[in-house]
């Protein structure tokens, strides 16, 4: 039965905005939105007029003034003659460094702890429970301060390495020195360095670029060889011997590049007040890294455990029935499926870690909060501008991390066709 109804062509009246259910909800939403925007505009106007009364408008010009202060860890060229904007960049890179190192280490520790917590071995499972509960139930700031204090109090000052009968000595064949300021380690130096390629504010280190290119090239070559072997195996049933080709592909290019650059290890040695040569990894970096890693890994362990528990028991039983060992079952059957449950909450843990790295100020690690939100803010007195810029940068960094992880999430999630 077909029913043809003709819409009544009634004209639109203003009263319908309130009395007609089709329009009422929209009307209310628009009114609320306008009120909210009015309120925000009024607050901003209030702020600006109060600032004007104090004789201080919003002005980001300070970013291009000379900074005048030194930063103890710089990944790019920086002197006290550089601008505040440059100091901000240095801080941002330090933040990204600690976030990068922290995310990787936290993932490794977290996955191991999460898997071990489900272990059939009672002692190991309980130990992991203790670890998780201790680290996620004590504030992160306390862990950072605690680890930093242990470093400061437990290790000797560089002075102790001096003299004929020093109170402290270097370890690992006299190449590594643990002090209460930093850990001095050997670092590769290049006799025939390629120098720097200027690219705007960031200069590209050509040595590093060559090494990365060699590593990536070797990796791609290795993958090509393995794929070719698989193709031959599928066609003929015989898999060609690939181990020497793979070894050559992986290590050959990097070896040649290092040789061409004239690489040698530069060992630290005590000169004057401090060790020179090699690389000095500051205790504030290590303490912050350790604390962020262990703290975040405790949360990741719980996420991993939840992810594994979400996989039906039948999956592992089926794998065992096929004769797979427990280790391979975990790596080949359980974890790939669990990833779908693990990735989304893992993204928020990465974001948490990145944001928590702003606690660096407690141990004098010069991250974004320490440069732009610390010294620059104090020296210029531009508190509002610095804080707004700081929030904007953290927002952008977080959104970038989150979108990169979402791309990965889309690639591993269940494909429904």
């Amino acid at each position, binding site marked *: 039965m077909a029913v043809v109804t003709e819409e009544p062509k009634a004209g639109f009246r203003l009263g319908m905005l309130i009395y007609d259910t089709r329009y009422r909800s929209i009307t*209310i939403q628009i009114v609320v939105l306008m009120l909210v925007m009015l309120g925000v505009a009024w607050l901003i106007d209030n702020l600006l007029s*109060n600032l004007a009364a*104090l004789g201080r408008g919003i002005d980001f010009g300070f970013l291009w003034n000379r900074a005048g202060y030194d930063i*103890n860890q710089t990944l790019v060229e920086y002197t006290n003659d550089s601008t505040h904007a440059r100091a901000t960049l240095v801080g941002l890179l330090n933040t990204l460094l600690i976030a990068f190192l922290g995310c990787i280490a936290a993932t490794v520790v977290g996955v191991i702890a999460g898997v071990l917590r489900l272990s059939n071995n009672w002692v190991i499972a309980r130990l992991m429970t203790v670890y998780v509960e201790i680290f996620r139930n004590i504030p992160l700031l306390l862990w950072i301060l605690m680890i930093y204090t242990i470093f400061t*109090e437990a290790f000797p000052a560089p002075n102790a390495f001096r003299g004929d009968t020093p109170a402290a000595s270097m370890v690992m064949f006299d190449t590594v020195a643990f002090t209460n300021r930093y850990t001095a380690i050997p670092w590769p130096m290049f006799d025939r360095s390629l120098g720097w390629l200027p690219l705007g504010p960031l200069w590209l280190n050509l040595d590093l670029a060559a090494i990365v290119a060699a590593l990536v090239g070797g990796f791609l070559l290795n993958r090509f060889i393995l794929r070719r072997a698989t193709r031959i195996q599928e066609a003929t049933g015989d898999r060609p011997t690939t181990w020497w080709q793979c070894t050559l592909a992986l290590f050959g290019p990097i070896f040649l590049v290092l040789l061409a650059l004239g690489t040698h290890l530069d060992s630290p040695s005590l000169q004057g007040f401090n060790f020179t040569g090699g690389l000095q990894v500051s205790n504030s970096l290590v303490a912050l890294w350790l604390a962020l890693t262990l703290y975040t890994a405790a949360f990741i362990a719980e996420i991993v455990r939840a992810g594994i528990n979400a996989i039906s028991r039948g999956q592992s039983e089926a794998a065992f029935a096929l004769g797979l060992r427990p280790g391979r079952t975990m790596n080949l059957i359980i974890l790939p499926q669990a990833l779908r449950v693990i990735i989304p909450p893992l993204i928020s843990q990465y974001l948490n870690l990145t944001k928590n790295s702003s606690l660096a100020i407690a141990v004098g690690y010069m991250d974004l909060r320490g440069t732009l939100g610390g010294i620059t*803010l*104090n*020296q210029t007195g531009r508190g509002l501008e610095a804080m707004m810029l700081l929030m904007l940068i953290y927002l952008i960094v977080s959104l970038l991390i989150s979108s990169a992880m979402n791309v990965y999430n889309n690639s591993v999630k269940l494909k429904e066709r």
Partner: protein
Amino acid sequence: MKQSVFLGTLAATTLLAGAALAQGTSTLQTVKDRGELNCGVNTGLVGFAAPDASGNWQGFDVALCKAVAGAIFGDASKVVYIPTTSSDRFEQLTSGRIDMLIRNTTWTFSRDTDLKMDFVGVNYYDGQGFMVRNDLGVSSAKELNGATICIQTGTTTELNLADYFKANNMTYTAVPIETNAEGEQQYLAGACDAYTTDASGLAATRAAFADPENHVILPEIISKEPLGPAVRHGDSEWGDVVRWTMNALVAAEEFGITSANIDELATSSQNPEVQRLLGTSDNLGGMIGLEANWALNAIKAGGNYGEIFAATIGESTPIGLARGLNAQWTQGGLLYTPPFR
């Protein structure tokens, strides 16, 4: 549901608006109405501003807070001491949380102009120095090439340090710290070779060590650090009160007015300037909105400038600072107050 969201938004907007600070009233009137002076001081620097064993704030800077309270209320105890760190002190002042800032703060051009402070004078002429351990074998700051140096972040010392090492073609590693106490801990643990701040601050810090004899303050003074009280820019009347209270303490020393003889001089002194200062003749206090005996009360709060100096940071105290630049102009120092007339 929609209605509750709407009401919630309205309520939040109103609350935020109410929290916005209304500026513009006179600070002197605000302080008088409140009945207490909010004085921003150091979080703890022995000799300048630190609570003693029984929790009472004592020190050179604290004495000025007391003198101002004495001048306004005739009662030096009507002060609320608000500890400020090197990084939040200016915000505390501009936001109105404190009425005056007296926290070893260096008077600089940009702080006076760009940061909208008003420095009303100098109560201590200081300079930046370095402290090292004796066993380091360093006798001059020029030997500190390559050293690790602890430094309070957000201070002028941070910039002076960078300039000094640059001018002398030396390098250093900075360990930024937030408070003096943290710096003390890092320095004592050997996490830095040298600790740098104003020379007076170094002396005060060293006095609090268990083994002050094992630490030496290097002879180089690498900067001018005129330390003084600051008030908000744009309230000159309040600035006058603080400025002239401080001048009254300096003038009192110049005229030989001490807490011991002040009552006697107030009635019997024949010196017209002393009479004007102590309110026996003329009414200078009325001109700045205070009682006629404002200076008398200010001086009674802790004595004249010299007495305060001797009691808090002078050579007989553990801090042991000499008067040096902070002597009267008649004694070869820089203290020189404009006349009271």
